[in-house]
């Protein structure tokens, strides 16, 4: 769980790891309902796309480390709350088999100011990619393979 800052007003769980799909619209509504001091909401959604490490991807299988995942992401949100004005933050990450075009991950942040909303949202997403214990396997008609961590993702995460 994130440390509370004066402005932080989380009323729903910050972090959900789930097989089920999520409703980005409902997440947006929850973020928006955070008092008259909120001026900015930034969201990011990741989708399963047809080309990753290889072409012809038909879906993903996502594995995670239950318990550790929630702790790592909760800590990232806490770090974001220390660095920026964050009124609410929400992270959802799906696991299991996800067909093409599925929603994989949602990160939403609301803040007084747009700079803080963008920065906190992108920081959480970048840091999640290299520190939250998820592993992605790409499924193709020719078989399946574990995705390799990208140097560019590590570099981006270290830039924060």
């Amino acid at each position, binding site marked *: 769980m994130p440390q509370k800052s004066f402005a932080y007003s989380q009323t729903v769980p910050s972090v959900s790891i789930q097989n089920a799909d999520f409703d980005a619209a409902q997440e947006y509504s929850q973020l928006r309902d955070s008092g008259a001091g909120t001026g900015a909401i930034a969201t990011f959604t990741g989708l399963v796309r047809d080309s990753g490490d290889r072409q012809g991807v038909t879906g993903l299988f996502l594995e995670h*480390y239950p318990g*550790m995942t929630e702790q790592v992401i909760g800590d990232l949100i806490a770090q974001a709350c220390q660095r920026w004005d964050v009124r609410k933050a929400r992270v959802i990450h799906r696991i299991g088999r996800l067909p093409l075009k599925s929603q994989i991950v949602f990160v939403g942040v609301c803040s007084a100011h747009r700079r803080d909303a963008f920065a906190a949202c992108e920081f959480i997403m970048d840091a*999640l*990619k290299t520190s*939250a214990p*998820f592993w992605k396997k790409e499924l193709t008609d020719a078989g399946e393979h*574990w*995705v390799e961590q990208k140097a560019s993702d590590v570099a981006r995460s270290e830039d924060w």
Partner: protein
Amino acid sequence: MPEQTLSVRFFARLREELGTVHLTMPAPAGQTAADLLATLASRGGPWGQLITGQPVMIAINQAMAKPQSPVKPGDEVAFFPPVTGG
């Protein structure tokens, strides 16, 4: 007094290639995560990759750790490939 043990978990490619989700291992005093990896690697076969293969990440009690991090009885130690979520 029962032998003191710790719990070892594997994820993703390692889980598949080692055919192992979970192990309970002895936890001698003064042991590090690297010692544990060496013990496991000595099983031979696919286990050798734990010290000669691709990078292995280490978590102790669900927090990222280093090869030189101490492990003690009751700990949950996890080994896995670099993460690829998001």
